[in-house]
C-alpha cells in the first residue's frame, strides 16, 4: 500500500479550503455559499485526518468527528435561516439582504 505523503495531502486540503473560500466570496446564491462553507469545513477536517495519519495518532480522527457534528448543526441552523430568508425576500441572492447597514 502506497503511503500518500503528508505534503500532498495537506496541499489537497489547502486547495479544497481555497475553493470553498473563493466560493463564499464570489457566489451570490446563499445555498451555494452554505455549500462552500461545508467544503471549507471538510478541508479543515481532511487536514486533521492527514496529520493524525502521519503521526499515527487517533486525535486527528476524533477532531474530524467533532467537525462533522458541528457541521451538521451548522447546516441545520443555516438551512433554517435560508428558509426564512427566502420567505422574506423571495430570492436567494445574498446581496439583496443588505439592509443592516449604516
Amino acid at each position, binding site marked *: 500500500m502506497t503511503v500518500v505523503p503528508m505534503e500532498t495531502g495537506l496541499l489537497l486540503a489547502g486547495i479544497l479550503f481555497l475553493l470553498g473560500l473563493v466560493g*463564499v466570496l464570489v457566489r451570490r446564491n446563499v445555498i451555494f455559499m452554505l455549500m462552500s462553507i461545508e467544503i471549507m469545513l471538510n478541508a479543515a477536517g481532511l487536514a486533521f485526518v492527514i496529520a493524525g495519519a502521519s503521526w499515527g495518532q487517533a486525535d486527528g480522527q476524533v477532531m474530524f468527528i467533532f467537525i462533522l457534528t458541528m457541521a451538521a448543526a451548522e447546516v441545520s441552523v443555516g438551512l433554517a435561516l435560508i428558509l426564512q430568508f427566502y420567505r422574506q425576500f423571495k430570492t436567494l441572492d*445574498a*446581496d439583496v439582504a443588505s439592509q443592516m*447597514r449604516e
Partner: protein
Amino acid sequence: MFGTIWIIPFLPLLSFLILAITGKRWSEKTVSILGVGSVGISALFTVLIGIQFLTNPPPGHFVVQTLWSWMEVGSLTPAIAFHLDALSLVFCFVVTFVGFIIHLYSSEFMEEDEGFSRFFAYMNLFVGSMLILVLADNLVLLYLGWEGVGLCSYLLIGFWYKDPQNGYAARKAFVVTRVGDTAMAIGLFLLFTSFGTLHIDTLLDAASQNWATGTTMAVLASALLLGGAVGKSAQLPLQTWLPDAMAGPTPVSALIHAATMVTAGVYLIARTNVIFMLAPATQLAVAIIGAATLLIAGFAALTQVDIKRVLAYSTISQIGYMFLALGVGAWSAAILHFMTHAFFKALLFLAAGVVILAMHHEHNMFKMGGLRKELPITFWTFLIGSASLAALPIVTAGFYSKDLILWYAWAGEQGNFWLWLAGFAGAFITAIYTFRMVFVTFYGKRKSEISHKPGKRMLIPLVILAVFSIIGGLVETPHTLGHIQLFSKMLENVLPSTGILHSGISEELILQIVTALLALLGIYLAYYLWLKKFSLVQKITQVKLLATSQRFFFSGWGFDWLYDRLFVFPAVWLARINRRDFIDLFYDGIADANRYFHQELRKTQSGQIRWYALGILIGALITLTIVVFI
C-alpha cells in the same frame, strides 16, 4: 461655666440645620421660636459666661476650650478650639445680643414672606459663623468663620433673588470681598511658612520674638492681613460693594452690613495687633485708609437720596473711624466704637426698616416726610440713634467712643494733626448727613399715607437699642467726665494700651468743646438747609460746578465707574473674544479627528455579507503573517 463656651456658636448652627432641612414644614411661629430662641439662648449663655469672666477672671485672663482636632497635615494641626478673652467676649456679646434683638425684629418684619424659614436659616448660619470667627483660637478656624459670614452675606443680599438686580448686588459683594480674602489667605500662608503654626497665641509670641520692628516680612504679612480686613470691612479701595449690599432685607443690613460682619476686619487687626505693631508702615497705612475712607464715605452719604444708602455710606465712614483708631494704636477705642456703633447703627437700620415698610417699600427719603406724628416711637428712637451717630455730647454713646478716637488721633504716639483733622472734619459731615436724614424723613409735609404700623416685636427692639445707644458709652469716659475706664481695663490683658505724647485736661477739654460745637453746628446747618430753606439747596444744585460734584459724590466718588473700566470691562472683553476658549481647541481637535475617522470607517459597514467575509479573510491573513513571520 467656661465649659459651656461651645454652646454659644452651637445653638444657632443647630437651629440653622433644623431650619435648612425641615424649615418648610413648620409654621411661621415655630420657625421664629427656633430662629430667635436659639440666638436668644446663646446671648443668655454669653451674658452668664461674661459675668463669670469679669467677676472671677480665669488665670491669664483667657479660657481655651478644645473640642477636637480638626485635621493634621504635616505640622498644620488646627483644632476646633474656642479661645475666650475680653476681646472675643465683647464681640460675642454684640453678635449674640444685637443679633437676638434683630432676629426678634425680623420675626415681624419678614412676616408672610415666602422665604420666611430660609431667611432665619441663613441668619442663624450667619450668627454661628460670626461666633466661630470671633471665638477661633487659630487662624484656620477664624478663616472658616470668615468665609462663612461672607457666604451668608451673599445669600442674604440676594435673598429676594427674583429681582436680577439683587442677584447682581450679591455677586458684586461676593467678588469684591473675595479680592481681600485672597490677600488674607496669602498672608496666612506667609505666616505659616514663617512660623510653622497658625495658632494665634503661639504665632504672635513667635512673631514678637523673631521679627524686629519694621522687618520686610512683618510689613508684608500685616499688609496682606490688612487686605483681608479692608475687603470685609468695606474700606478704601474695596468699599464699593457695601452700598449695593442694601438690596437685602433691612434686618440683614442691620445685622450683617452694619453691626457685625463688616467689623470683622476691625476684629482681625485687633486680634493680630502684635504683627501690626511690628510693622509701623502698615499701621500708618491703616490709619490713612481709615481717615480717607471716613471722609470719602461721609461726602458720599451727604448726597444720597435712598435712606438705606445714606446709612450704608455712614457705616463705611464709621468703620473708617475704627480703622483710624487701630492705625494710631488706640486699640480699645476702636473696639469701644465698634460696640457703640453696633447699637446705634443697628437701631438706625431697624427704624429705617419700619419707615420703609410704612411707606410701601419706598426708599427715597424725599418722598417721605412728616412721619414724626405718624410713627412716634420710631421717630424718637431714630432721633436717639442719629444723635449717637452725630456724637451729640455727653448724652449719647457715640460721643464717648468717637471722642476717644479723636483724642488718641491727636495725642497718641502714632497720631498726628492731619489724622485728627480728618476725623474732626468727618464728625462735622456726619452730623450734617445724619440730621439731613432726620429732617427730610420725619419733618416737613407729609407726602404719602402710611400703610403699616409697626407691632410690638418691631418696637421693643428699637427701644432696647435706643437705651443702649444712650448708656452704652458710659463704660469709658474721658478725663473731663469722670474718667471711668471699665472698658479699657477689661481689654488691657488682650490689647496693648496707647502711648500718649501730650496730655492735659485743659487740652482735652478744648478739643471736646470744639468737636461738640462742630457737631451742633452741623446739625443746625442740616436744619437750616433741609428744613428751613430747602429752596437754597435747590438753588445750590443749580450751580454747574456744585451739581457736577453732587453727581460725583452721589456715585460714591466714581469708584464704580473707575473699577468698571479698570477691571470689569477688560474682563468682559477678554471673555467675549475668548468665547471659544483657546485651550478647548486642543480637546476639540481630538474630538474632530475621532469624528473624521468614524465617518470614513463607517463606509465599510455596507450590509453585504460577502464583503464582511473578505474582511475576515484579510484580517486572518494579517494575523497569520504576524504570527508566522514576526
